[in-house]
């Protein structure tokens, strides 16, 4: 219970935030808005789940945004340009993401290089390769894409949950199980808590670190595929700066950036908080570009201060 207190507090504040928006804006409290919260943030959320696990282990991965961009243009190029079937392209894309992740993880672990630098290099590499494939965006038209775009799970009459939202929930669930109910996940937390101790405790530190970067690379690629579905196209500049949003969402969800402490479910809350702030601003629709930024900042600040007050800092 005590461990889940921050999580509950974060959830409570999310509700307050949402409630305030619902009072302020007509039509905000609707199933569509809530469903959109999941659907519109699906690829951010999927990338953030992978990022959560990396941060659990005290690592960081700046390459996720670029991997999304690369995957997106890669998928589109193969499907549209080469006429390959998505069923063949998707595994390839996820495989490539995983390989890039594994490479970075290996460099970070084996050569003791700072994750920040290595994944920054990964970011440039993926971005550059994406643009090398095509600087322009490429449309995808394929039966599967149409089917996915039109698919939704009807709950009753009013609520239609699209594929992306379902996938997000699925990934969060898997992330939660991996992070909190497997040896691998607990090993990650231990590494983030104190890598030296984890090593002395006989935990497989190296394999776990490499595995988590690999997993995250795959997650980012999956997010990239979701992005292609979301837009029915591929675009190398997709996901620019998304890594920062992902990190922020993870941290807002209560995960410690220095590692060793956190919660995958918190990340979902973080995504929803981000989404709610943006949705509220869209409903308002009166803010100029600059006021919008200021308001987002102010809301973030309010939220974080509230979170602080709810969960008093341990002395």
């Amino acid at each position: 219970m005590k461990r889940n207190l921050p999580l509950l507090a974060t959830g409570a504040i999310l509700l307050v935030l949402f409630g305030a928006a619902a009072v302020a804006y007509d039509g905000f409290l609707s199933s569509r808005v809530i469903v959109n919260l999941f659907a519109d943030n699906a690829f951010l959320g999927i990338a953030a789940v992978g990022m959560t696990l990396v941060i659990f282990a005290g690592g960081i991965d700046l390459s996720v945004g670029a991997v999304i961009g690369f995957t997106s243009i890669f998928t589109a190029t193969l499907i549209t340009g080469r006429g390959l079937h998505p069923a063949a392209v998707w595994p390839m894309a996820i495989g490539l993401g995983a390989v890039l992740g594994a490479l970075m993880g290996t460099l970070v672990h084996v050569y003791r290089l700072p994750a920040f630098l290595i994944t920054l290099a990964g970011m440039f590499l993926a971005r550059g390769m994406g643009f090398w494939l095509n600087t322009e965006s490429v449309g995808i038209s394929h039966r599967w894409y149409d089917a996915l775009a039109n698919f939704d799970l009807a709950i009753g009459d009013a609520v239609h949950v699209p594929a992306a939202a379902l996938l997000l929930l699925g990934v969060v669930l898997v992330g939660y199980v991996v992070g909190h109910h497997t040896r691998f996940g607990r090993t990650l937390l231990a590494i983030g808590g104190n890598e030296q101790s984890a090593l002395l405790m006989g935990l497989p530190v190296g394999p776990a670190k490499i595995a988590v970067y690999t997993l995250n690379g795959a997650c980012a690629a999956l997010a990239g595929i979701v992005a292609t579905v979301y837009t029915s196209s591929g675009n190398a500049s997709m996901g620019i700066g998304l890594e920062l949003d992902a990190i922020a969402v993870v941290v807002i969800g209560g995960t410690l950036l220095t590692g060793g402490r956190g919660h995958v479910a918190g990340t979902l809350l973080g995504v929803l908080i981000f989404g709610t702030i943006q949705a509220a601003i869209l409903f308002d629709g009166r803010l100029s570009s600059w006021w919008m930024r200021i308001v987002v900042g102010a809301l973030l600040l309010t939220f974080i201060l509230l979170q602080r007050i709810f969960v008093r800092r341990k002395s």
Partner: protein
Amino acid sequence: HAAGKTLKVGFAQTGAESAWRTANSESMKSEAAKRGIDLKFSDGQGKQENQIRAVRSFITQGVDAIVIAPIVETGWDPVLREAKRAKIPVILTDRTIQTSDESLYACFIGSDFYEEGKMAADWLAKFTGGKGSIVELQGTPGSAPANERRKAFGDGIKKYPGLKIIDSQSGNFERSGGKQVMEAFLKKHGKAIGIVYAHNDDMALGAAQAIEEAGLKPGKDIVLVSIDAIKEAVAAVAAGRLNCTVECNPLFGPKVFDTVSKLLAGEKVPKKMYNKDELFDATNAAKVLPSRQY
């Protein structure tokens, strides 16, 4: 929608990345205010995903019409289909999109980035007699104006074998980027550079500064051509620091809302409407300068 009820229009702007964009947003807002239209404005911060999110939100909010300034050309089909299902007309501004189904949007109003690049090329050919070594200052890699203006200019100068692009780098549409790249070009190519073609005015103005600092005279020793025709650039043309800037008119507001009214009244509108883009060089810059609004 009965008469008397205020119209609600959603506008998914790309961002606030330049003065041109700000003028564009301003024009939309002031025109909406003038007409008593409830404009839902959204800043996409340069990300297509934000724009799609905005459009979906507009649909949820049940707006009467949606205006999009698409950041990229593809990727709009799913969300436009949603709009169509909700029977909300969509107007594209600024640039058009690639889609399999042209009925997904009502019409397009805007500038033709491709045409702008062409105009710059033609002007240059006339001005230089079709000869010269060009360095190109590109916009942000992957962005639509950068893509279009690069392609169009390249196509445009093909007719003139004397015009050659000898180097090309990105200045990210930024002044300091233009300046920095130009400094490097000046060191690298020295006197070989005869012409600078910049994808926007900001980079051209930065380049002009670099040229001055290298002890040369921009507009005389090196010819500068750029696109956008922001006020400062027109002034620079008038002062002889730039040679030519192609206008890309941001003041869409009136035309967009006229079109909205027509669409909602059930009138037919042309599928594509281009703003007439003008070109300013030494001959007319000084004259139009006082009337420039942005």
